[in-house]
C-alpha cells in the first residue's frame, strides 16, 4: 500500500479568545493518498477549514494552538517544522486555493507577477524560467491571451478568471497536494462547472492529490473519491462517495442529504430541515456533537462520544446507533439511480 501524502491522526486544534477556548477541531483523523480527491464536507464552524489550514500552519498562532494529535505530510510532522521550512513547503509541496479570490489576490500587483512570486527566494529557478513557467501554467488553467492577461490587475478580471489565477498560483510550483477551500462558492454555476472540470483535468494530467473543502454536496458528488463528513469539530462519517450518498450511515449526513432541494424533489413534499443550530464550540457537548439535533438520539449519545464503527469497504461512522445494544433504525437513504449504473 502506498504511503499517504497527508496523514492526520487525532488532531485537536483550539483558539484562545477572550471568551475562553474555542475547540474548533476535536480529534480528527484522515488521510490523503497520492492522486486522489478527498472531500471534507460540513457547515460553517464545523472545523473543516481550520483542519485544512493546519497542513500549512496558516492558522494565526497565537491565538490558535494544537491541543493534541499529529499531522504528517509525507511522513513529517508539520507541527515540528520551523517557519523557514514551512515557507519552502507553501506552494512547492502544498498549494492552497482559497474561497474568495477577491481578497487573496494582491490588488496592487499584476497577476503574472503574482504567479511568478511563488518562486521568489527559491534556489534553482531563474527569473526567466519563473516567467515561462507562470505563463505555461496560466495557459494550462484556461486563460486565453496570456501575454495580455498577465499584465492586468486583479480588478480587471472576472471572478472565474481570478479563481483560475489562484489555481495557477497553487499549481505553478508543481505541488503534490492541493488544498482547495470552497474554490467555487463565490462563482456562478456555469463557471463553477468549468473550474471543477479544470481541477479534475489537472489532477489527471499532473497527478496532484486534491483536498476539496466544501459545504456543497453537489460539488462533492461530482468530484470526490472519498469523503469525510465533519460536524462540531469531529469527523462523523467517512467513506467512498457512493457509501456516503447511497449507504448513508450517520443521521447528520442523512439530514444534510434530505435538506437539499434537488431537481426531482416534489414541490408538495416538505424539505426535511434539521431543526436547531450547531453546537457551541466554547463548551462542546460531552457526547456526540449532533445529539441535540438528532431524531434518533439516545441517552448515551448526550453523555459520551460515540466510538468509530467500521462498516464494509472502508466506510466508517461514529454513531451509537451501531452499538449492538442499540435498536436498529432505518435511515432515509437515497436510492442509487438505476439508469446511470
Amino acid at each position, binding site marked *: 500500500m502506498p504511503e499517504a501524502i497527508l496523514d492526520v491522526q487525532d488532531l485537536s486544534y483550539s483558539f484562545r479568545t477572550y471568551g475562553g477556548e474555542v475547540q474548533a477541531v476535536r480529534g480528527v483523523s484522515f488521510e490523503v493518498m497520492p492522486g486522489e480527491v478527498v472531500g471534507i464536507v460540513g457547515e460553517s464552524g464545523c472545523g473543516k477549514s481550520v483542519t485544512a489550514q493546519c497542513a500549512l500552519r496558516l492558522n494565526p498562532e497565537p491565538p490558535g494552538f494544537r491541543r493534541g494529535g499529529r499531522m504528517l505530510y509525507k511522513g513529517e510532522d508539520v507541527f515540528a517544522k520551523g517557519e523557514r521550512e514551512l515557507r519552502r513547503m507553501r506552494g512547492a509541496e502544498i498549494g492552497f486555493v482559497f474561497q474568495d479570490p477577491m481578497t487573496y489576490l494582491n490588488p496592487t500587483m499584476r497577476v503574472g507577477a503574482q504567479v511568478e512570486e511563488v518562486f521568489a527566494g527559491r534556489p534553482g529557478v531563474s527569473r526567466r524560467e519563473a516567467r515561462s513557467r507562470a505563463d505555461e501554467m496560466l495557459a494550462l488553467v484556461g486563460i486565453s491571451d496570456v501575454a495580455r492577461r498577465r499584465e492586468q490587475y486583479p480588478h480587471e478580471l472576472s471572478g472565474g478568471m481570478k479563481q483560475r489565477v489562484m489555481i495557477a498560483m497553487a499549481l505553478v510550483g508543481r505541488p503534490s497536494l492541493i488544498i482547495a477551500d470552497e474554490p467555487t462558492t463565490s462563482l456562478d454555476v456555469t463557471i463553477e462547472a468549468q473550474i471543477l*472540470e479544470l481541477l479534475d483535468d489537472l489532477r489527471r494530467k499532473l497527478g496532484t492529490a486534491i483536498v476539496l473543502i466544501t459545504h456543497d*454536496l453537489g460539488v462533492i458528488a461530482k468530484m470526490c473519491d472519498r469523503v469525510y463528513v465533519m460536524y462540531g469539530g469531529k469527523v462523523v462519517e467517512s467513506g467512498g462517495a457512493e457509501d456516503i*450518498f447511497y449507504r448513508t450511515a450517520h443521521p447528520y449526513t442523512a439530514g444534510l442529504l434530505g435538506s437539499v432541494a*434537488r431537481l426531482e424533489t416534489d414541490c408538495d413534499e416538505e424539505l426535511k430541515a434539521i431543526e436547531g443550530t450547531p453546537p457551541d464550540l466554547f463548551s462542546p457537548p460531552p457526547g456526540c456533537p449532533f445529539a441535540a439535533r438528532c431524531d434518533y438520539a439516545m441517552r448515551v449519545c448526550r453523555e459520551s462520544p460515540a466510538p468509530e464503527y467500521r462498516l464494509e469497504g472502508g466506510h466508517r461512522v461514529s454513531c451509537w446507533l451501531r452499538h449492538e445494544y442499540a435498536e436498529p433504525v432505518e435511515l432515509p437513504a*437515497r436510492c442509487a439511480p438505476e439508469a446511470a449504473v
Partner: protein
Amino acid sequence: MSVAEREPLLSVSGLSKHFRMSRTEVLKAVDDVSFDVREGETVGLVGESGCGKSTTGRCIVRLHEPTAGAVRFAGEDVYAPAGSRSADRERKRRLCKGMQMVFQNPYSSLNPRMTVKDIVGEGFALVGRLGQKERDERIVELLRTVGLGAEHMSRFPHEFSGGQRQRIGIARALSVDPRFIVCDEPISALDVSIQAQVINMLKRLQAERGLTYLFVAHDLSVVKYISDRVIVMYLGTVVEQAGASELYRSPLHPYTRALFSAIPEADPRVARGRARIPLKGEIPSPVNPRDECRFADRCPIAEPVCRSRRPPLRDMGDGHRVACHLA
C-alpha cells in the same frame, strides 16, 4: 378560479434600468423586461450574477428608480407622476403596506444598533398608531410566526446566527401584513441545514397568509422546488419563462439548457453521468450592448440571424415564452 385566470397582482412592462458609467458608456443592468405575477403564486427569477435579477426586484419595490417602463401593483402605477409630493408620499405608504422585501445578506440588512423589537416594530408606523402593549403583543406574535420567541425582543442582531437573522428580516417584512414579498436571494448566505428551515417557513407562511412571492435566486434546484413559474434572465433580458415543471422538463433556450446542465446535483452517479453543455467564455460586459441576441457570443448553436437583431420573447404555447430566433 385557477391561478391562470386571475388578474395579475403585479405587472412589469418594458422595465429598464440603465446606469451611466461615463459620457459614452451606459450599463444596461435591466433592459426591456416584462412579466406578470398573479396573486398567490411564487415566481422564481433566476440567472447568474450580473444578469439584472436583483435590480429588477429592487425596481419593483422602489429601491431603484427605473430608466423606462412601468410597474403596476394591485392596479396602481408605482411610478406614474403623482401630482404632488404629498400624494406621492401617500402612495408610497400604500405600496409599502402592500409589498415588502427580504434581503440577501442578513448581516447587513439589519441595523446593528436597533433591538429586534425596534426592527420588527418599525413598520407599525405605517399601519397606524398602536399602544405600547398592543405593539409588544404583535411583535411577539410575529416572532412566534417565524420561530423566535418573546425572549429575543430586547436583543441586538449580532446575538443571532445567520438563519435567525433571516427570520428577523422575514418578521420585519410581515409586520405590515403585505400581499407581496420580493425575496432577494433569501437563503444563499445560509448553511445547508438552515436553508431548508427558511424555505419550509416561507412555504408555510404563503399557505397561511396567501402571500405572493417573487423569489430571486441563483440556486436552480431551490427555485424549481419553491416556484410555480420561473423566469430566466441573462444579461439584463428575459430569455425564457414558463411553468416550473415545464421549464425544467423541456427548456427551449440554449442558455437555459446550458444552465440546467451545470446544476451540481448531490448524487454521484447523476453528477458524473451527465454531459455538461459547455459554454464558451464568460458573461460579457453589460456596458453598451449591441442590438443582437445577448447570448450569441457564447451560444453553441448561434447563426448569423442571431447577430442581426435582438430576438423578441415569443409565446410557444401554454405561456412558455422564449427569446431565441432558433427555438
